[in-house]
């Protein structure tokens, strides 16, 4: 009976994490370039119960499951909706791929966004990190520049540099770091040839589908409630066992 108490407890804890993920998705439903997370929970491995001490030797009764836990949070790298802004510094990607950004912790990756040209004439993202080109930071010196679909940057029809564009073999190895940046936690050979195309003057919206999120939230909350109901029931039963059974 105490086992059941803990099993229902794992149920409540896991559903809470589901709602945490959903809450984070919904709060980023308007965050351009955000990719939604999907949490996956799995049950603990089955435990085999054996009959002992009944004189017949050990005999298997059957498997018992000891609850559920959160196994993975998978980032869904689906394309978000493209919004036209017409601003030359608004860059995004159609298809697979990322822009490379130089940070103090090493190279990070971003899907796009409202970039700007800083006081040194270098193209930077909102936090001031520089956007990387094949030959170091991109320095257009003006916001009057053209980016070709393959990442070539032109100022006044003169070729400047090519943006460093990357794709990944295994997107599951990309860890979110906040500020819309991704970190490659895999080896360098996880980086693949860029297959998407750079689009200038567009912003990629968040790929969160609020209807789906709300439905999942309702399901998780109800599941949470059911687990709570079971715990209360078990508590009542334990109460009877401890206090009432055997009372004269």
């Amino acid at each position, binding site marked *: 009976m105490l086992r059941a108490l803990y099993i229902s407890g794992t149920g*409540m804890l896991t559903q*809470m*994490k589901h*709602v*945490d*993920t*959903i*809450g*984070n*998705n*919904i*709060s*980023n*439903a*308007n*965050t*351009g370039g*955000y990719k939604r*997370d999907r*949490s996956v929970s799995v049950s603990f491995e089955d435990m085999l119960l054996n009959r002992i001490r009944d004189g017949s030797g050990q005999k298997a009764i059957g498997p018992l499951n000891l609850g559920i836990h*959160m*196994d*993975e*949070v*998978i980032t869904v790298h689906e394309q978000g909706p493209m919004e036209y802004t*017409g*601003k030359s510094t608004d860059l995004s990607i159609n298809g697979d791929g990322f822009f490379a950004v130089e940070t103090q912790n090493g190279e990070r990756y971003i899907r796009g*966004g*409202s970039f*700007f*040209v*800083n*006081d*040194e*004439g270098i193209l930077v993202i*909102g*936090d001031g990190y520089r956007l990387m080109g094949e030959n170091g930071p991109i320095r257009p*010196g*003006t916001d009057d520049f053209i980016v070709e679909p393959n990442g070539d940057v032109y100022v006044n029809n003169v070729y400047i540099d090519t943006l460093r564009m990357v794709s990944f073999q*295994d997107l*599951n*190895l990309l*860890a*979110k*770091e*906040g*500020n*819309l940046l991704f970190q490659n*936690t*895999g080896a360098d050979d996880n980086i693949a040839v860029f297959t998407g195309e750079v689009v200038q003057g567009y912003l990629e919206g968040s790929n969160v589908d*609020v209807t789906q999120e*709300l439905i999942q*939230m309702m399901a998780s*909350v109800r599941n*949470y*409630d059911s687990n*709570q109901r079971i*715990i*209360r029931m078990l*508590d009542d039963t334990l109460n009877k066992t401890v206090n009432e059974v055997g009372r004269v």
Partner: protein
Amino acid sequence: MIRAFYAAASGMQAQQRSIEVRSNNIANLQTVGFKQSKASFSDLVYDSLIPAEDGKAGVSLGNGTRVDSIHRDFRQGNLIETGNPLDLAIVGKGFFVVDNGSGERYYTRDGSFKLSVEPQGIYMVSSRGDYLLDDGGNRIALPSDRGNMVIDRDGLIRDGETVVARIGIVSFQNPEGLEAVGGNLYRQTASSGEPEPIGTGTILQQYLEGSNVDLLDEMTALLRTHRIFQLNSRVVQTADEMEGTANNLRT
């Protein structure tokens, strides 16, 4: 306490900020030389509970969203013909330079200038009374008889054949780094860079530059932002109910 609660609260806060920015844009729909702003968001840091391994994503939970930056969009506004010879509009990049009388310089796209008749001379001033500066950084004094005065595309103020002054137009490497101080004025900051004079023809006389706010854009964005605000408040409510459920584990 449940993370979703704070994540959704941060979402409400960020959407609220975005609504404020959009409302300011709409309020300035008719403001001469106004440039619209837009809030952009980014996600907050993630708590990594289980790191990723080969072929399997880890478990990391997010903490919500924040306003990353508020971008000012310096694209051209509509040109409005006024017929007033002291109304100027800049076509393309650049700012007028004005001086508030005590040596502080500001930059503006608002070209609705007036005259200020003072004992030392007749000066061109902005609606607030700030002095318009020429390309040398001096106040522009006009002759008392201005019957033949014209201002050409290069900003040269001519009275017949004689050139009175040349209006100073400057641009910045990073105009988004300018600080808006109200009254249609901007101030130079470390991130905007130094003002650089522009020489080419960019001035239109008898025109004003209208606001570059697109009402349709603002209204659709406002509707969407409002909806997402509501959704976030729904999550806060749900997280609260879950806390209540946990609280009722024992009666």
